[in-house]
């Protein structure tokens, strides 16, 4: 067993160079709440850990163009403490705050939740719904990538060698918009989502839905953006028929597996149930 090296660079370029130079044997360390567990069970056996928490960009929340840029390593607890962010994107913040316990909240980050690429990651469906964009820094500079395009399968991402997610941008959105996230778990806390649904929507002056995005977690190899579900809401006042269409579209988008956390039937069923509830909360928030 080789010794594991630890580096904590102070800028992204240095971090990217270290990552690129390690030939796939390095891991980015943000909150570490997934990585340390994977290392404990030899799921990953890195030779280099690159701690990005000493890099200012990954640790700050800043307003930008009317939206928010959230550093990839900002712990969940800090998101909830940022009143402006919590008011602007309550669904994203509540999703992030559902990750693990209070203790895990002290470490776990949006960037880590995204790059760990678990299909059941709580914050990802909410970020997808929010139209969040990840800023990726790599050897060839930076690029902005829609969050739904980061994960490509369980534990797999589209990031190229040396690329790091530095921050997540949550865009400005029109007045009368709201978002929400709910997940189903057997207990009240501490479980991995059996199904997670995030919805963001905007209303016109008459309360008609003019735009919507629906993110769906734990029902496919990656979290999904479900256009058909959004279409079910757009143009409606979220009446019963629209809700039925939403639930049907969400359930139709599910291609889950039977596992220790839930069955195909249960997940497909619950996805529709949650979608209605989430849409209703987002609708209420948008109307306020």
């Amino acid at each position, binding site marked *: 067993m080789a010794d594991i090296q*630890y580096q904590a660079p102070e800028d992204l370029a240095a971090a990217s160079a270290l990552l690129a130079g390690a030939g796939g044997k390095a891991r980015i360390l943000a909150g570490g709440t997934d990585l340390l567990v994977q290392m404990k069970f030899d799921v990953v056996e890195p030779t280099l850990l690159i701690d990005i*928490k000493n890099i200012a960009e990954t640790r700050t929340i800043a307003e930008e163009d009317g939206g928010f840029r959230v550093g990839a390593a900002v712990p969940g607890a800090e998101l909830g403490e940022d009143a402006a962010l919590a008011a602007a994107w309550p669904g994203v913040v509540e999703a992030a705050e559902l990750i693990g316990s209070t203790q895990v909240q*002290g*470490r776990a980050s949006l960037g880590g939740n995204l790059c760990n690429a678990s299909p059941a990651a709580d914050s990802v469906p909410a970020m997808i719904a929010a139209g969040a964009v990840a800023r990726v820094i790599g050897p060839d500079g930076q690029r902005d990538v829609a969050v739904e395009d980061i994960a490509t399968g369980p534990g797999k991402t589209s990031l190229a060698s040396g690329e790091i997610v530095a921050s997540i941008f949550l865009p400005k959105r029109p007045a009368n918009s709201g978002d929400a996230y709910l997940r189903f778990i057997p207990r009240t806390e501490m479980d991995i989502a059996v199904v997670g649904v995030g919805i963001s929507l905007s209303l016109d002056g008459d309360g008609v839905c003019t735009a919507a995005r629906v993110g769906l977690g734990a029902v496919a190899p990656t979290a999904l953006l479900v256009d058909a579900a959004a279409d079910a809401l757009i143009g409606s006042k979220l009446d019963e028929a629209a809700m039925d269409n939403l639930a049907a579209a969400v359930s139709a988008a599910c291609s889950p597996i039977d596992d220790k956390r839930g069955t195909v039937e249960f997940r497909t069923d619950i996805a529709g149930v949650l979608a209605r509830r989430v849409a209703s909360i987002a609708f209420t928030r948008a109307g306020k």
Partner: protein
Amino acid sequence: MAKTHVTTTINGDETEFLCETEQTLLDVLRDELHMTGTKEGCGTGDCGACSVTMDGRLICSCLVLGVETHGHKIETIEGMADGDALHPLQRNFIDMAALQCGICTPGVLVAAKNLLEKNPDPSETEVRFWLAGNLCRCTGYDKIIRAVMETAAEMRGA
């Protein structure tokens, strides 16, 4: 051997240690510093027995590497009492029988203290959700929740 030299502050004392990268803060506290008040129940962040604070933030010490604590301030159960004077939470946990076997107790106390620092007047629901990451298999939580609520009231001077 490629151990890293780390300087932290633990319970107010500047503390230096050498550790390997994969050693968690929990490993360092217990195996290197022999501060065994912080317990290991799972090693995966699911039980809260290893709760400590880092720069005032509640964390599981099993989910933080020793090397990550360089320059940071750690508080553990050993720093909770002021000499012989127990913290009101500690006193109430004894007086209200909020422990049976006691293995989860250090973690619960550290977590509860952190809660009361942030929210001096928590509701029962807030206490329960704050402590949801601190498993207790003996008490059914009843007396723990009561002791935390009682302490909060006491510390508010109610």
